[in-house]
């Protein structure tokens, strides 16, 4: 244990903070940062998914399209929101909002907070992988600025399904991972109990992502974590969102889209 064990324990603390039940969720940020948020509903195909929400809202008298993964606070809300794990309908609703944002030239702000897309038989039958893949294409080519803010858990393809954009911001105690540590431990060690080691090995903290060049900015949280002061956390997030939006809106659309393509193109490039 010793050194490695200490590091792993510190990483696990970050995982627990990112999942803290009192942590502000997407709607807490949305209501604190924006005015006039109007939630739109439904994917126009099958249903309305409450694990992904979205709609137009105003920020400094301009309209922004908000897309967010929303966890529930109470037992009944957790059930209603499926613990923040979206079905295909959530991703297809998000796609509808991306298209709408493009049509009306609304910048997109996406709040990521999910342990992953819902692993269910119905989700597979209705093409969860297809829905996510379509979003990756649409977001990578959308002709409007896109800011992604990870507020809690960024879990796998389920997070990426609303998470492709021009800038990736992460709250200080948020995490983002190719798979949740439990899933990774189950796959690689065939033992969920190895989740602490898995969490450390995956390099999933905001600081890790910044170091890897994947996250652009870490937004500081109040001492002990965002759950201790929603106002301070939201103010810090709002300031960062305003600054990045202003910067992105000054970039010509062709260049913006090309730079977004290159942003992903160079991850893992060997040349």
């Amino acid at each position: 244990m010793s050194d490695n064990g200490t590091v792993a324990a510190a990483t696990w603390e970050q995982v627990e903070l990112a999942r803290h039940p009192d942590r502000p969720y997407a709607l807490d940020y949305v209501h604190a940062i924006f005015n006039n948020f109007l939630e739109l509903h439904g994917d126009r195909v099958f249903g309305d998914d409450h694990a992904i929400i979205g709609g137009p809202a105003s920020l400094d008298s301009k309209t922004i399209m908000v897309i967010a993964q929303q966890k529930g606070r109470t037992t009944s809300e957790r059930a209603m929101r499926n613990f923040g794990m979206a079905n295909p309908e959530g991703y297809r609703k998000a796609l509808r909002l991306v298209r709408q944002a493009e049509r009306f030239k609304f910048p997109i702000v996406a709040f990521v907070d999910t342990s992953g897309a819902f692993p269910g038989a119905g989700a597979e039958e209705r093409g969860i992988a297809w829905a996510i893949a379509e979003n990756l294409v649409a977001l990578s080519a959308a002709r409007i600025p896109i800011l992604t803010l990870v507020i809690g858990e960024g879990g796998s393809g389920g997070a990426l399904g609303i998470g492709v954009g021009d800038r990736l911001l992460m709250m200080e105690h948020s995490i983002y991972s190719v798979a949740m540590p439990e899933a990774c431990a189950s796959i690689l060690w065939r033992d969920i109990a190895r989740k602490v080691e898995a969490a450390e090995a995956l390099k999933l903290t905001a600081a890790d992502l910044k170091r890897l060049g994947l996250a652009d900015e870490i937004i500081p949280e109040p001492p002990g974590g965002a759950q201790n002061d929603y106002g301070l956390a939201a103010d810090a997030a709002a300031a960062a969102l305003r600054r990045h939006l202003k910067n992105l809106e000054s970039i010509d659309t062709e260049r913006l889209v090309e730079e977004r393509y290159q942003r992903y193109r160079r991850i893992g490039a060997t040349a």
Partner: protein
Amino acid sequence: MLVEPGSFHEEDQAITATDVLGFTDSQPYTRRIEQSRASTGANEAVTWGEAMLAGHRLVLVALDFAFMGGSMGAATGEKITNGIERATQGRLPLLIISASGGARMQEGMLSLMQLAKTSAALGRLAAAGVPYISLLTDPTMGGVTASFASLGDVIVAEPGAMIGFAGARVIQQATYETLPDGFQTAEFLLAHGMIDLVVPRAELPAVLRQLLDLYAPNGAGPELQLQRPIQTAAPAPAATR
């Protein structure tokens, strides 16, 4: 081999995985890479290049399940993206043959981001009007299904191939659901509208020829006579919910 003998010219043969994160599970990632390289003779879980198939020049990208379960790391994603971009630039039809367990855990977020990278490249291929045939073999799961594998203009799968996002074991652990017979098989996906064709390997050359003829620039042309209609598996009865 599907392509005309001697027509395949492999690219990026030297590109190989690197252990950026210093990842160790039951053994170091570097050792896993060495073992896969030794057992497969390849440097990565994907091979790509230009080839001729049924008189059409195309870009062929093939994943190899024997190399770390066909998992997608950064080098895998890089080679796939290079193939897609070659197809876009050369206006060559693209055929990707998938076989993968999904993202490669040992490369963490660098692996996950390959989903975005390959999908973005396919968005440009589609915008350029270049056709993409996705061939799904057993198994095609996880992040590979949630990116390039499901983005084909035409999606073909081999009979009985397991195709999906979350694995059956994960779904059962999460939901305690009883999974329907044939869950996540190619035939199941055909019945649910997720793929176009289920084609046995022996019939693949004929089907690919027909697809390449039909999707060639300006279409098949008036002279083309199809030898016989494309064979597809009999659709399973529509699922009742």
